[in-house]
Each structure stands twice: as C-alpha cells, then as structure tokens.
C-alpha cells in the first residue's frame, strides 16, 4: 500500500536523522564546514564573492549530501542493521528513498548555512526564490542518490569514502565551481556536461545573476530530475541484485 510505503520512508528518514545525522559532531561540522569555506575564499579573493557564491553553495551540497550518506548505508550493511529494513514489509525502493532523504536533509542544513552566509556577507542576490529552492532541492536529491549509488556498489565503509572522492573532486574542479566551464579545454567541457553538478552550478549562477529564463530553468530542472531518477533506479537495481 502506498500509505505504508510513504510511512516507511518517513520513519527510516527520522531514524537516520536521530541515529546518525543529528549528532552534535555532525551538526557542528555542518555549520563549521561552510563557515570555513566562506572564510577561506573571502580572505583569498574578497572581490567577486557574489559570483563565486553559487559554486560554494554547490560545493556545500556535494559534501553535505555524500559525506555521511555513503557511510551510513555501508555501515548499516556491515553491522547487519540494513537487513532489519529489508526484513520489514516495505519495498527496497522505499528503503533507498528513506536513506536518500536522510542525506538530502543533512545536505539541506549545510547548504542552508552556506546560502545564508552568501546572502548576508557575499551580497548574493536570489532573483527567484522558487527556482532557487527547486534547483537546490533537486541538486541535493541528485547528489544524495549518487551517494546511495556509491554505497550500494561497495562493501566496506572505507571503499565508500574512496569511491565518493572519485566523483566529488572531479565535480568540484570540472563543474564550474571555481573555473567557468566555458573557459576549460573542449574535452574537459564534455566531461563537465556529463556531471550533474555542472547544471546545478549554472542554474544557481543564472538565478543569482538574474540571467535565468523559464526555458533554461525548466531544462536544468528536467536534467537534474533525470539524473536523480537514473541514480535512484541503478541503486535500486544493484540492491535488488545483491539479494539474488
């Protein structure tokens, strides 16, 4: 039943937030990380911070969603706790969605702090709160589902960390966080447009610089939505396969 599945997603999310994400060390990291990031960049280059802010928000989203989530899933698999969820009368899709939402909520907290700093201190202007919220939500869901995909692909916690870095660092350097994609060599541009974060950064930048159009925003929304669905679908398939 759909209601039972939705309830299951909600309770898994609540459990993960309580057991893992909302622990004092994680909350303090979630506040410190964007603060330090903002401070480092404002000291390095005080001018042009408003332009840099969307990239920093995207970077906060990358680390906020993937840092904990991949660990949570692999840790639970290692201790056998994930098996408890698989024993419950709830589908694998819903279990994964609960896990993905855990990463999304934690990422939302870190991204929220970074956005607040950007608005208050970097003079970043959000031209459309609706599009900004939608792009942030889709970015967090997409990155969180990527974290889930990483977690279900490996067995050990340290493997999840290593594999996450294979995605995280290239995304930070190739997706326009620091260097505009258009100024990169052609082959790197191709790689950049294969990565979902490029679309997030471009969308956020156009919203904050006031250059967005409805058509562009619809395109970014659709692309990020497709990435989210693809990552979730593959994670679900891999997890189902592991039960064969």
């Amino acid at each position: 039943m759909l209601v039972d599945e939705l309830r299951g997603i909600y309770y898994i999310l609540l459990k993960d937030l309580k057991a893992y994400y909302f622990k004092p060390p994680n909350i303090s990291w979630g506040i410190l990380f964007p603060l330090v990031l903002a401070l480092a960049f404002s000291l390095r280059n005080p001018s042009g911070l408003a332009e840099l802010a969307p990239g920093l928000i995207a970077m906060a989203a990358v680390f906020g969603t993937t840092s904990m989530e991949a660990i949570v899933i692999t840790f639970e698999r290692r201790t056998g706790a994930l098996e408890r969820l698989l024993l419950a009368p709830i589908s694998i899709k819903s279990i994964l969605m609960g896990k993905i939402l855990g990463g999304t909520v934690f990422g939302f907290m870190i991204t929220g702090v970074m956005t607040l700093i950007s608005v208050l201190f970097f003079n970043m202007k959000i031209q459309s709160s609706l599009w900004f919220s939608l792009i942030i939500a889709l970015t967090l869901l997409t990155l969180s589902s990527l974290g889930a995909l990483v977690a279900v692909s490996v067995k050990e916690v340290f493997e999840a960390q290593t594999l996450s870095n294979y995605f995280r660092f290239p995304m930070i350097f190739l997706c326009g966080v620091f260097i505009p994609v258009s100024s990169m060599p052609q082959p790197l541009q191709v790689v950049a447009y294969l990565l979902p974060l490029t679309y997030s950064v471009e969308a956020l930048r156009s919203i904050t610089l006031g250059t967005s159009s409805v058509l562009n925003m619809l395109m970014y929304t659709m692309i990020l939505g497709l990435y989210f669905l693809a990552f979730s679908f593959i994670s679900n398939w891999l997890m189902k396969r592991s039960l064969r």
Partner: protein
Amino acid sequence: MMDAIALQGLTKNYGSLTAVDHISFNVEEGEVFGFLGPNGAGKTTTIRMLVGLTTPSDGSATVAGYDIIGDIVEVKRRVGVVPEASNLYDELSVWDNLLFTSRLYHVPKDELPGRVRNLLETFKLHERRDTKFGKLSKGLKRRVVIAAALVHNPRIVFMDEPTSGLDVVSAMSLRRLIRDLRMEDITVFLTTHYIEEADQLADRVAIIVEGKIIVVDTPESIKQSFRGEPVLEAHLSRIPDNSMIRELEPAGRVELRGDMVRIEVESLTEAIESLSRMVSQRGIQITDVNTHHPSLEEAFVAVTGVSPELMRIEKEGRR
C-alpha cells in the same frame, strides 16, 4: 491443522555451488520446529529465502499461506525474525529501537506505546528503556532483538541461533521464552547448533546436510531410529589411567573424561561386571554411575558425521 510453512523443492544456487538442494517439508501451525545441520549446511540460506532476504533459484514455499516470491510483503507482515546477529541500532535507545520497529511493521499509532511498554515488561527491559542498544550486554541485546521480532504480534517467528554466544543464565531464560511462545500457539522455526537445545524445545526436527534434508521427525523418533549402544558412565574416586581402559575395553568402546569412564556397551551386565572387577582390584570407589541411551546429539553425529562441539568451536571462531 494448516501448515505455517511449506517448502516444495526449494533450492538456492550461488554460481556452481548449491547451498540448498531441492528441500521439501512442512511446519505445522503452533509447533517449535528445529532446523539442524553442520555449519554451512544451508540452514541460514533457507531462512533467508523464507523471509525474503534472498530469492530462491528453484522450487517454491509458502509462509503463513503466502507465496515467498509473489507475496513476500504479505509474508513479511506476518513473520518475526531473530537474526543470528543482534543487529539493531547501537545509537538508538531500547525504547526508540522498539518504537522504530513497530512503526516499520505498521503497528497502529494508538497501540504503539502500550505494545512497546508490554514488551519491555515481558522481557524485563523496563529499567533499560533509555539505554542505548550499543551499551547493552550480549544477553540484553538478544532480548531486545527478540522483543523487536515480536512487536507486531507475528504468528510465525524465525530464530537463527538465538542462544549462540549467550551466557548460561541468558540462554536459559531465552529457552523459557521459546516455550512460552509455544504455549501461545506461535510457530517457531529454530536453527541452533546446540543439539540438546533442539531436543528440549522442538516438537519436530529436520536435519540438513550439504543442502539436502536427511530426516524430518520428532527428536524421540530420530533418537530411536539412530539408537546405538547403551552407554555406561561411572565417576571414580581416582582419575582412571590407560591400564584401566585396556582392562575395560572388552566390554565396549571406552573413553576417559576427567574422573569419568564412559563405555558404549553391548551388554550392560557385562560392562558393570568388568567395571566392578576393575575397581575392586585397584581399591577405587565408584562415586556416581548412570546409564543412558544415545542422545539427539549422538544421533546428529551419526547422521551428519560432524561433531556438534566442533561446530560450536567453528562458529565461535567466526565471531
């Protein structure tokens, strides 16, 4: 009486390895069914198939009347599972773990606190309700895991090595609990490598070896069918030596266990005579003596060729 669990040719292959090989048997409603076998015989794989943690390669099974492939969510709603590992959430309290499990099993909201409180009372966990699961002793963790398996009032409970690694007192209280479940007509599907435990608890027992079912019957019938020689056990006032063994050997197969001589005999009379002769010649006292027929454990050894003691050591070694 309806079958709580029915397996028909259930098979699980992992590549070229057949872990469970076309097994068929039924478990009646309300019985405690012992599922025994050496390590790696296919016990846990069978449970995993029956509760939806892995899909069978061939064959079929129903649990609580529902097909384990087509209706696995319905099966999951009706069964409780006590896995071999105490795998609840270390960071959550006992109360939160039971509350979370109740919610996952769709226990109605208004019944939730009462249900959890009752379980805490039943399992004598009330004082530990706010303790984090990770901080509990092994025995207490096991109790919480069993409580979590019963939170939605299942009619069938799968228990995979429930007393493994527990101290004697915790294991005894768990066995008492299994008897209580039996009194409430709850079907218990129990795997254990403590054969005597199955002997005490199970109405019927299946023995699986290398993925194949060797026998399904009551413990008494299994003991009868594998009945070997009677055994004479005598505790002596002095630790016996090898010369005594040689003297007793004509009476049967002799083993020394500390101050005890154990003789598997064909004729009890002959063995008692030999023993009396030997002790009177040496001026030794017999401090205790008893005779018995082979146990389920001995029948198990006869069927599987595996020593339960060796199984336990292997199992503990893997922890």
